[in-house]
């Protein structure tokens, strides 16, 4: 079975499970919350393939500055982007908690995003997602409130899209 097929079924199964548990509640979304440049962000969890510890990144010539280079993942060679720079926060020195969040390649290229930390998995009703403010970064799709903080939900496609240009 192809990967896409697998996922479609996986998603269906999850949706069915959610419906059973939650009864008539609003549909839930699952997000991976991350920390970038001191602010909380989130990525749709179905686009996340894996999370790996920071490892040496081999620099690549002739690429935009925010492409840090490549890493090997079990036979695959994947580019890593500096998410902070993409979000307009400028380059940061990797910290011990830094992780590389690897996104699936089904709807775009496989790519790694360097983040300062991976915080938690959020499960919340869809109607808690709000339109982002006008001054949010271009790749922020929605925001949601977690306690006193606002988490910006990123759209992986627009995170990647502007890079090649």
């Amino acid at each position, binding site marked *: *079975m192809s990967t896409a097929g697998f996922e479609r079924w996986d998603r269906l199964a999850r949706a069915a499970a959610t419906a059973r548990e939650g009864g008539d509640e609003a549909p839930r979304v699952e997000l991976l919350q991350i920390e970038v440049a001191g602010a909380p962000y989130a990525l749709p969890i179905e686009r996340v393939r894996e999370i790996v510890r920071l490892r040496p990144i081999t620099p*690549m*010539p002739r*690429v935009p500055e925010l492409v840090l280079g490549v890493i090997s993942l079990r036979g*695959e*060679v*994947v*580019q890593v982007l500096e998410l902070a720079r993409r979000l307009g926060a400028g380059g940061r020195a990797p910290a011990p908690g830094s992780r590389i969040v690897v996104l699936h390649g089904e709807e775009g290229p*496989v790519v790694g995003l360097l983040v300062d930390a991976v915080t938690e998995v959020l499960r919340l009703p869809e109607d808690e997602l709000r339109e982002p403010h006008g001054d949010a970064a271009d790749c922020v799709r929605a925001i949601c409130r977690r306690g006193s903080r606002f988490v910006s939900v990123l759209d992986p496609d627009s995170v990647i899209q502007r890079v090649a240009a």
Partner: protein
Amino acid sequence: MATRRRKTPPGDPRPAKPARGPDVPPEKPARGRDVSPDKPARSPDVPPDKPARSRKLQLEFVSEAEEILERMRDDLSTLAEASASGREAAPAVVNQLFRSAHSLKGLSGMFEMAPLAELAHHLEDVLDRFRLGRSTLGKQGLVLLDESVALATASLEKVGREEPDPSLSEAIADLVGRIAAWSTEPAAAAAAPAPGVPEHLLRALTEYEESRLRESLRRGRGLALIDVEFPIASFEESLGQLNRALHDLGEVISTLPSSAASQEAGIRFELLVASELAPAALAERLGLDAAAVRSATTPAPPVETATAPADAAHPSEADAGTLKSLSNTVRVDIRKLDELLNLVGELARERSALGALAEQLARQPETARAAADLDKIRRTLDRKAQALQAGVLDVRMVPLRQVFDKLARVVRRLRIDLGKDVELQIQGADTELDKLIVEDLVDPLVHLVRNAFDHAIEPAAERRAAGKTERGVIRLEASQRGNDVAVSVTDDGRGIDPEAVRRRAVERGVIAKDDVLTRKELFALLFGAGFSTRDEVSATSGRGVGLDVVRENVSALGGIVDVDSTLGEGTRVTLTLPITLAIVQALLVTAGGQRFAIPLGGVRETLAVGPGELQQSAGRELLNLRGDALPVCRLVEAFALAPVDATQKQFAVVLGIGDVRVALLVDGLDGQQDAVIKPVQGPVPNVRGVAGATELGDGSTLLVLDVSALVEDSTRRRETR
């Protein structure tokens, strides 16, 4: 089956990924090893229920039908060659074609592909009539058959990609109409009674056998009747042996079981054979008693043959052996081989881990002995792993014959379409290359051959005036040179005028008026973007694809294009390509504090270079290597790396492709290693000068340099930018 199904191993949380991610553009479609390269199969992105199963069946159908069509293409080539040289079409080939059409009909019917089944039905009909001698094929018949196979292939391709195309069904219907119209025309050769053949024999023959008999007599062969007897237990084998022996001496028209008295547990046969040999000579060559072979054109005792069943020997049974041997290959999706190579690569890492462990153990006296044993095992493992790697690589290799056969068909087609007399000579078709390279080589080569046919070879009158033979020649040659394979297309046409190229280049602002270029450099300009020395575009070679695309395609394969031409005598275009892209011996170098891998196939030599050994000439930096001035490329500059202390000694890696050489300056040399080259995945996957990346045994990731791009960029700076 070449589908992209894959299992996720238990305990592996990540969904299965193909070795080449689907995002690597342009992705190679899944292909079986011996499938013609123009029919990609696609991943069945459907849930594992009924649609998936029927999709799987459909792909199975496509792959099987592809095989049939491939065989038909080969057989048609053979027929066309025979027809072009005035030889008789080999009956075995015609029969196989007939059977292929028949199988295709059955298969298409089974999968409810009505237009294809209809087409196959008509093909079968035409071939049957030809086989029975009821009609001749002629040029037009061959063209129709060619067209049918091409159309069937195209429509299969659509099925494979799930892109139904109604225009193809229309095209098939149109073709079917033309075939029907053509085949109802009165046959050229009406069946004439065979002279001199006894009536009772004729009565026993099937229509097919009779037509073979007539054809043999027409060609002046004699007829002989061979009378043999075999024990029942082993007659099949003995008869087979006899048939094989006869294969070289003549043609077995019919094998008739004989009812004449035989020994107990024996069975007698009479074989009607057409041969140029006299009966006595036949008997001698077959090691038979002279009395067992007699001439059939003189009356034979009537009783034995008259009772033989008319359909005793259908031609399909006679060739069953051939069909059997055809299936002795396995079709493998090339990505499965990529996966295997991946595993071999990972094995290499385990090997070095073992080595490290052995070293550690060796330091302690109490485990020193075990360490020695461990090291021995590691070395054996090493050898086996290397053999495994070589084996996997070997499986990927296919002969260039596949491409050359295709080109022969192209030339045949052009001969008919353009009415030009051009001969295609082929040499080195057995030279092997990586399957993926061979496939990507088709388009560039077709383009070069068309170009030679259309533009380079002059019309007959012009050739005669120039004192050449009227028949033009295009030569395809392939040969292995170390880690490279050179494929060249040579014509004996009008050649290229370097001065005309220069004028055009100046006109277009590609070079300045007083630029000094060698002849070769001038010719190389022809492969620059949008450069053509002929303004008009003919239907044959002008498909919007220029020589620049040839260069791009070849360059993408890590190869290089080289042109040489003599005005009035002809042109030779040589493509030099690496044998495989999958795994290479690599030279490791350091520059700007970073390590890089350079495929050894592109490395001629390495040498230390002192600061005074470089020269400046006309703004270019040159390295004097035993009298030759090589252009210099500093990796640190090309890749904008952090420069290291400039007073340090530098090393020159002499890169070469074909006979073009460039000195790549690096900070240090770091030994050699096997490298499995992986494509880079990500938003910016293709970077000029980088062919991919590789993971070393120590877990580090290195970029692999694209030698052809570096060589080109350093030697062709004057080109259009």
